[in-house]
């Protein structure tokens, strides 16, 4: 697939890198040749220096032969305009990055589609959604639903108190009925587990299960669920504002923000929020504002380092739930080792959202995992493919991939060896990037 990306910012370059590795042909445009030179030293793509809202420059990218146009420059207006222009120049599909939920409303969508802007991506909103789900579901690091919750993916940090720790998975037998461990992140390593692998304390394990077994999984992993009431936000960034909006009125929220203007803006916008003007790095201030009494601590300042360190601090004084926004990829692994709870990365979320528009027909959904290089795919089992020939046990599935479960009609089934995939099923599969090629053979 040929993809044109406008804007070589963080989201744009991450997307370009990811899609290029997936064998898509990428043309990246930006008006800063310096940024383009940087990325073209690292990724095999073509770059065009120019403005995203100039017809001449857009034509340079060969848009009329492209399948997808993604506008992720810093300015919303430019993205929307660029998408409309790109559609006019003949690209099949366009995606604009926005920072205003108005565009997402159903009643305007038709109008916008007529203008040639087909899809929207709102990274802050997506990130806020992840934060909300991790605040509401206190046991998990990452929570993801397939087909409206028929199957659930949960990333859980395992501690020493979990009953399943230090035992080979095959020994656990019936304990793990309707639960599949699909991916284990240990330090920088990433394991697609087989029966002989063990779950150790400190691992982040991704499980596939269903709603009714969810509770049992929390017991097996030694998680005590608790209700979150008091939340402290460090930094009143756009993500924080969006999260507060999505959380609703049932929480007691404090926001610490260093910028006075932004403080008054947030205070003006939200009723049930106490805004405090101060520097989040000031420990005394945090203590004074009752950091110790908080159930959850969410750090979304512009600085990944500040977010990491403050979450570390919050954890060390006993706050159970912490969420840090870490935009610096190099820091994500460090963060995992520092034990600081959930990590949210806007770029990763946005990229994995856009990723689904580049997929083949047989894949209906995809999700990138924050603290693991594995990806989750939802394949549709087509007639005549290898996946439906035999029961799962006899399939000779690649070791880099793991079957999580299937969704047949209205029901979700967690994977087991005797299961046989049928035509039309949605199949949830985990794989590290190197397994993708082998995996595709089963669905083609």
């Amino acid at each position, binding site marked *: 697939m040929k993809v044109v990306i406008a804007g070589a910012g963080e989201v744009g370059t991450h997307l370009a890198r990811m899609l290029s*590795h997936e064998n898509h*042909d*990428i043309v990246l445009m930006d008006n800063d040749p310096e940024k383009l030179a940087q990325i*073209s*030293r690292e990724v*095999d793509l*073509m770059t065009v220096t120019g403005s995203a809202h100039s017809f001449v420059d857009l034509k340079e990218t060969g848009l009329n032969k492209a399948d997808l146009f993604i506008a992720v420059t810093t300015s919303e207006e430019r993205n929307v305009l660029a998408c409309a222009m790109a559609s006019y120049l003949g690209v099949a599909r366009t995606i604009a990055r926005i920072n205003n939920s108005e565009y997402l409303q159903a009643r305007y969508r038709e109008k916008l589609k007529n203008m040639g802007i087909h899809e929207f991506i709102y990274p802050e909103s997506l990130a806020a959604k992840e934060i909300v789900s991790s605040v509401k579901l206190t046991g998990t690091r990452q929570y993801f639903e397939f087909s409206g919750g028929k199957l659930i993916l949960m990333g859980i940090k395992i501690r020493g108190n979990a009953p399943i720790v230090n035992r080979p998975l095959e020994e656990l037998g019936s304990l793990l009925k309707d639960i599949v461990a699909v991916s284990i992140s240990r330090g920088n390593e990433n394991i697609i587990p087989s029966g002989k692998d063990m779950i150790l304390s400190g691992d982040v394990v991704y499980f596939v299960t269903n709603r009714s077994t969810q509770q049992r999984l929390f017991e097996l992993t030694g998680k005590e669920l608790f209700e979150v009431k008091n939340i402290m936000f460090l930094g009143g960034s756009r993500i924080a504002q969006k999260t507060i909006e999505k959380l609703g009125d049932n929480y007691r929220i404090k926001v610490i923000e260093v910028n006075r203007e932004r403080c008054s803006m947030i205070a003006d916008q939200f009723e049930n929020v106490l805004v405090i003007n101060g520097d989040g790095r000031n420990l005394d201030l945090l203590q004074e504002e009752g950091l110790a009494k908080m159930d959850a601590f969410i750090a979304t300042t512009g600085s990944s380092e500040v977010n990491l360190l403050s979450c570390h601090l919050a954890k060390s004084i006993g706050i159970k739930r912490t969420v840090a926004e870490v935009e610096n990829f190099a820091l994500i692994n460090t963060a995992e080792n520092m034990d600081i709870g959930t990590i949210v990365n806007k770029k990763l979320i946005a990229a994995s959202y856009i990723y689904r528009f580049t997929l083949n027909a047989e894949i209906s959904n995809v999700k990138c995992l924050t603290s693991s290089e594995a990806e989750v795919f939802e394949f549709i089992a087509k007639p005549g493919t290898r996946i439906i020939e035999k029961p799962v046990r006899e399939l000779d599935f690649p070791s880099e991939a793991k079957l999580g479960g299937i969704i047949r009609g209205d029901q979700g089934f967690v994977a087991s060896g005797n299961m046989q995939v049928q035509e039309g099923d949605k199949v949830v599969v985990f794989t590290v990037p190197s397994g993708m090629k082998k995996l595709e053979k089963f669905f083609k």
Partner: protein
Amino acid sequence: MNYKTIFRIVGLMLLVEGAALLISLLIAWLAGGSDVMAFAWSSLACLVPGLLLVMATRKSSMMISRTEGFLIVTLVWLIFSLFGTLPYIFSRTIPGFADAFFETMSGFTTTGASVVDNLETFPKGILFWRALTHWLGGMGIIVLFLTMMPAFGIGGMQLYSAEVPGMTVEKISPRIYQTARIVWGVYVLLTLVEVVLLMFGGMSLFDSVCHAFATMATGGFSTKQASIAFWPSPYIQYVITLFMFLAGTNFTLLYFAGRGKFSRLFRDEEFRYYFLFVLGFTILIFSGLLISTKLPAEQAFRDSLFTVVSVITTTGFVTADYLMWRPVLYMLVFILFFFGGSTGSTGGGVKIMRIVLLLKNSYYELRRIIHPSGVIPVKFNKHAIEPRVISNVLAFFMFYLMVFFVSTVILMIFVGDMDTSMGAVASCLGNIGPGLGSVGPVFTYSAVPDAGKVFLSLLMMLGRLELFTVLVIFSPSFWTDQ
């Protein structure tokens, strides 16, 4: 340093060379020459170690770092040239190793300097192999390799930029292997057209193919001792002039021109200067010839145009012995030794773009002295060029001059005479072919001692890979900063 990957690529390249030798074997067999067995053994000598290397290095990674890229390209060129000597040695056409190495390196680097004094006695297979070394080296053996290897990704980019002449790599297509395919496609197409046009002028199929290979690669090996002067037909000489000129043009521009975007050709500043230099020097030499000799006007024009294009594109075909002209005229030709073709062409030398940037920068320096606080960037194609690029060009030119002078001194130890040494060094470093003095257009390099020949061969490689790719390997930080 990932030696496994390096050896794998060297192994794969040996297979490519083995395949090229098999093609020559076919030609030799069709011509019924005495060189069939020589090619059979040579291709075996490439294929066997190639296969062994490839088998021994299975499961090596496809990632290539910048530094590995430089090392791989240099190694590949060296090894390609070493194995390329085999047909000459086995067929006893050029029995000495130093001679054969010189001839092969001169082929792959598209220099076109020869040590052969009895070309007419050579079997057809060997003549074809000589031309084929040009053709493979012209667009680049690594680039050819990349067209067959889509899997390299950004690693391919490191190799590509280490081999392709010019300062920046201009991609026509998102993937480097696609770009490599397009460029090779243009190259193959132009070669075919030239073959047809030459045959139309009465050249035999075999001679047309060999000369088309040598022209499009800006090489200079002919199948005749007298080079193009063997065919006095103005038609043939003009056709070759035209294709030499095209081969010295940026292939990206040719690709766009071929797709109907002719305006891009003349909008490109490098092409405009290239055209102007050719025009200017031709007029100067033409008028010089008219004044100083009794040649008919048409022939004087043809000789001067042919010589100017042949030298500026670094081809080195000969229709007239410029050393028989007035010294001022052959001095003009010698100045052209330092020009070279366009970036992204098959021509060698310093390259038009670098020359233009150097001239502009020096000229602007005068204005900068008058306006100490002025912001006066060097512009090229209507864009300001970054100071880092200018400094790169200055460093390149300094290296070029340094290598030129030091090598001239070294060569004078073997040769003795200054004209010959300067001409030989400038000619080999710029991948041109004929030089001055006793290596002039009507002579060969056979009189140079063996040590001098090996030295000149290495200079050809240095020039073909544009100094930096090779020199960087000898910098201490290349090995310590890993």
